[in-house]
Each structure stands twice: as structure tokens, then as C-alpha cells.
């Protein structure tokens, strides 16, 4: 009962913040990127909160729980991707002054390429949204074990929708502060202290754990490389981060905030999740699914009331990611699909389309979440074709002048076909993402060299 009360109390706080923030939202632009004046640390928190969704919190701990130290490759890959995103891209993205990846593509490669990329990214972000809804439902089930998965998914999505629709990005960045504060305290302070003292410190882990968990290649090198590349690259070319980079005051702050979020929050956070997973191997050896090791550890190491509070923190972190992913899906759809079909739409109509599509995508997300295989499975399978197509093109736009519309279209087609084909064959040897990425990168180099016309005006936005 105490757990449920804490959960309800937490949800109420989230909703109130959303409603209070709603007064500030007046135009479609402020709904999307919070008026492009998000203060530095607020943006740092917001970026870290977007990165620390179900993927980092539950994924890294789950991998370490299942494979030992080698499972950290997921966390290290994701953190490296986030750091590279700050070092290489943040400044350029903010200087380009656009809100979504398709918008950037349109300015550089024209509307045709942008439309194809839009359709692709919407599918990818939608996959993430469905995975987040599934995570939200799974966590709520720990609060109320008698609840079915569909019911808990619907309850959590409704709450997420309410504050995202009413408050938009302003509400998301405000609740991010609360979410990330609870998560940092839980994962970096409370759980490590309690768990390490229960297990007898690292000496206690070494003494009682199976030695293979302490080797660095227990998972197998191909699987480790695949995972590092997948999470690294999808962390680098990432719509959620894109929206937040565009919300920064200027290019310098965008770069600084991205790097700070990656180095000071994301990387240490991943390491702490790994420690929790490793202690979990010793403390809770018989866990049904490795995915639930973080909530299980919270439940195991804390009392009823404090445990409920910390579980609310976990719920909060996933909620933050889910809300911003839902926001990005809606913004991308309204700007890059609907506005292209109906260019005469005014500001008020755009805002309405954004809100309606937000609800529609969330409802679809619930369906996929309930019927999909697993949290990570939903994300990877849906995201791979988009990632394989986007990564080389994204690098090309900023660093290679020969990238042109015709070459880009060929690259996208090859990326999608090769990824799906490899997936259909059961992804032998390497993951379908890596296979698609290799094919699309080679294709981009050959196709863009072949179709490049010297003197043709392509880069209109960078002039």
C-alpha cells in the first residue's frame, strides 16, 4: 500500500509541474524547443535524462548481470557516442539552427531526401517510444504486481501524455530536473552504498562470484563490438539530443552542455549501473529476467517506503525519456510530413497537429509495447534501418562536400534493404545494424562520388 501511495504522489507532482508549465506555451515553436533559451544546467540535466532512459538504466545493469564485466561494453559504447556527439556535432547542429534531423537534411540535400529520412526516423523514434512505454508498464508492475501489462502500460502512457500534451518541451525539461535528481541519488549514492555494504565490498564480490563474470570477454567479442557500435552510433545521431541541442541558447552552450551531460552524468552513471548489476549477481542470483535487475535490487536493498521512493525515481527517469521521445515523434511528424502536405497551415493549426499526433503515436505505442517481444528487441529491430541510413549521411553532410541528393537516396535504399535482408536471415556473424551500416557507408562513398556534379549548389544552409 505504501508503495502505491508513493507512486500516486509522484505522479501527482509530475502532473502539477506539467500544468504549471502550460501557461508558458503559446506557439508551436515554444512547444517544440522551449523558445531556444534553455539554461545551461537545465539543458545538461535534460540531455542526461533523455540518455538515461530504459536503455541505460536497465540495459547496462541487465547486461552486466547476465555477462559480468564484459556487459559494460553497452555502457561504454553509449557513453562514447554521447561524448563524440558533443565533440563533433553539437556545435554544428546548433549553428544550423534547425529542430529536427529531417529539417537539417532538407536544407542540405533537398525535400525529397528529407521526406524519406522523415518517414524512416519516425519509425525509429516510434520504436523507442514503444520500448519506453513497455518499460514504464514493467516498472509500474513492481509497484502493483497484480496489474496486467496492458493495464499498466495504458495508465503510465496516459500520465506521460497528459503532461507532455499540456506542457510540451517546457514541461519535459522541468520534470527532467526532478527525474534526474532522484535517479542520480538512487543509482550513484543510495544503492551502491547499501549494496556494497551488504555484499562486503568489492572484495566480497570477488570472493563469491563465478570468475568468468570478471573476464572482459565473457560475452564474446563480436557481440560486444556490435553492441558498442549500435548504442554508440544511435547515441551520437539521436533525435532526442538533437531537439535539446537546438533548445540551447547558442552553439557554444550546446556543445558544452552535451559534453558535460556525457562526461559528468552519463559515463559515471553507466559505471554505477554496472556496479549494481555486478553486486546483483551475488545478492540475487536467481532472477527470472536480467532486465529487471535494477528494480529488483532497489526492492531487495531498501525498506518498503524508501524502496518505493527510489522505484518512483526509476519510473521518473523512464518517464522523462518516454515523454521527450513522444514529443520528438509528434514534432517530426507535424513539421516534416503534415506541413509538407499542407504548407499553408498557420501556427495554431501546427500546434494542434502536434498535440493530436502525440496522442495518436502514444496509442499506437501502447499496442506495440504490449505485443512486442522485449524492450531492447523493439528498439533494435525498428531502429536499425534508420540508424544505418542516417549515420553515414549525417557525417557526410557536415564533413564531405560530395554528398548530394541522388547519392543520398541510393544510400538510404541500400541501407534499408541490406539491414532488413540481414535481419531476415537471422543476423549471422554480425548484427543487422552493423551489416546495414557497412553497406550504406560503402554505397554512400561510391554513389556520391559517381553522382557528384562540381559546382552544383547543395549546401544552402551553411552559406
Amino acid at each position, binding site marked *: 500500500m505504501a508503495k502505491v501511495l508513493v507512486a500516486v504522489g509522484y505522479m501527482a507532482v509530475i502532473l502539477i509541474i506539467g500544468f504549471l508549465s502550460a501557461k508558458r506555451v503559446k506557439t508551436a515553436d515554444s512547444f517544440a524547443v522551449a523558445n531556444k533559451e534553455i*539554461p*545551461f*544546467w*537545465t539543458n545538461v*540535466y535534460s540531455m542526461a535524462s533523455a540518455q538515461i532512459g530504459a536503455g541505460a538504466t536497465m540495459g547496462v545493469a541487465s547486461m552486466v548481470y547476465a555477462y559480468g564485466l564484459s556487459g559494460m561494453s553497452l555502457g561504454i559504447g553509449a557513453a562514447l557516442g554521447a561524448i563524440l556527439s558533443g565533440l563533433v556535432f553539437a556545435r554544428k547542429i546548433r549553428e544550423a539552427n534547425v529542430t529536427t534531423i529531417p529539417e537539417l537534411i532538407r536544407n542540405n540535400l533537398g525535400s525529397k531526401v528529407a521526406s524519406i529520412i522523415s518517414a524512416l526516423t519516425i519509425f525509429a523514434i516510434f520504436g523507442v517510444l514503444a520500448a519506453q512505454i513497455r518499460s514504464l508498464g514493467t516498472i509500474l508492475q513492481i509497484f502493483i504486481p497484480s496489474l496486467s501489462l496492458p493495464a499498466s502500460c495504458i495508465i503510465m502512457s496516459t500520465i506521460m501524455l497528459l503532461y507532455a500534451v499540456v506542457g510540451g518541451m517546457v514541461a519535459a525539461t522541468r520534470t527532467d*530536473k526532478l527525474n534526474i*535528481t532522484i535517479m*542520480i*541519488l538512487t543509482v*550513484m*549514492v543510495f544503492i*551502491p*552504498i547499501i549494496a*556494497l555494504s551488504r555484499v562486503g*565490498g*568489492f*572484495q566480497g564480490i*570477488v570472493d563469491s562470484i563465478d570468475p568468468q563474470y570478471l573476464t572482459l570477454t565473457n560475452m564474446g567479442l563480436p557481440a560486444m563490438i556490435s553492441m558498442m557500435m549500435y548504442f554508440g552510433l544511435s547515441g551520437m545521431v539521436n533525435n532526442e539530443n538533437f531537439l535539446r541541442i537546438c533548445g540551447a541558447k547558442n552553439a557554444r552552450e550546446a556543445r558544452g552542455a552535451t559534453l558535460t551531460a556525457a562526461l*559528468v*552524468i552519463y559515463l*559515471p552513471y553507466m559505471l*554505477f549501473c554496472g*556496479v549494481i548489476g555486478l553486486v546483483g549477481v551475488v545478492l540475487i542470483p536467481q532472477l527470472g529476467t536480467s532486465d529487471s535487475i535494477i528494480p529488483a535490487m532497489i526492492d531487495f536493498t531498501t525498506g518498503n517506503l524508501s524502496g518505493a521512493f527510489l522505484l518512483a525515481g526509476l519510473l521518473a527517469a523512464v518517464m522523462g525519456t518516454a515523454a521527450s521521445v513522444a514529443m520528438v515523434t509528434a514534432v517530426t511528424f507535424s513539421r516534416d510530413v503534415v506541413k509538407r502536405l499542407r504548407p499553408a497551415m498557420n501556427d495554431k493549426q501546427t500546434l494542434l497537429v502536434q498535440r493530436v499526433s502525440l496522442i495518436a503515436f502514444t496509442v499506437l505505442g501502447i499496442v506495440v509495447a504490449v505485443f512486442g517481444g522485449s524492450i531492447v528487441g523493439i528498439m533494435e529491430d525498428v531502429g536499425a534501418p534508420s540508424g544505418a541510413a542516417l549515420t553515414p549521411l549525417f557525417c557526410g553532410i557536415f564533413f564531405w562536400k560530395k554528398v548530394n541528393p541522388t547519392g543520398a537516396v541510393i544510400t538510404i535504399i541500400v541501407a534499408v534493404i541490406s539491414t532488413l535482408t540481414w535481419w531476415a536471415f537471422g543476423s549471422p556473424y554480425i548484427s543487422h545494424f552493423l551489416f546495414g551500416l557497412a553497406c550504406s557507408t560503402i554505397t554512400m562513398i561510391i554513389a556520391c562520388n559517381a553522382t557528384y556534379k562540381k559546382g552544383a549548389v547543395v549546401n544552402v544552409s551553411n552559406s
Partner: protein
Amino acid sequence: MLVILDYVVIGGGICIAAFLLFNMAKETFGKKR
């Protein structure tokens, strides 16, 4: 040797959390420019 790692992990966590929370609190509740 491993005892040092215990202290690094616990101390590091507390320091990072304190640093982040301090900066956030300063920006949220501090004087507006």
C-alpha cells in the same frame, strides 16, 4: 587494494551527485539574470 575501490565508488558517487545538485539548485533557485 579492493577496499580503496569501495571508497572510490562510494566517495565518487557522493561527490558527483553533490556537484550536479549544487549547480542545478544554483541555476533553479539562484538570482535570475
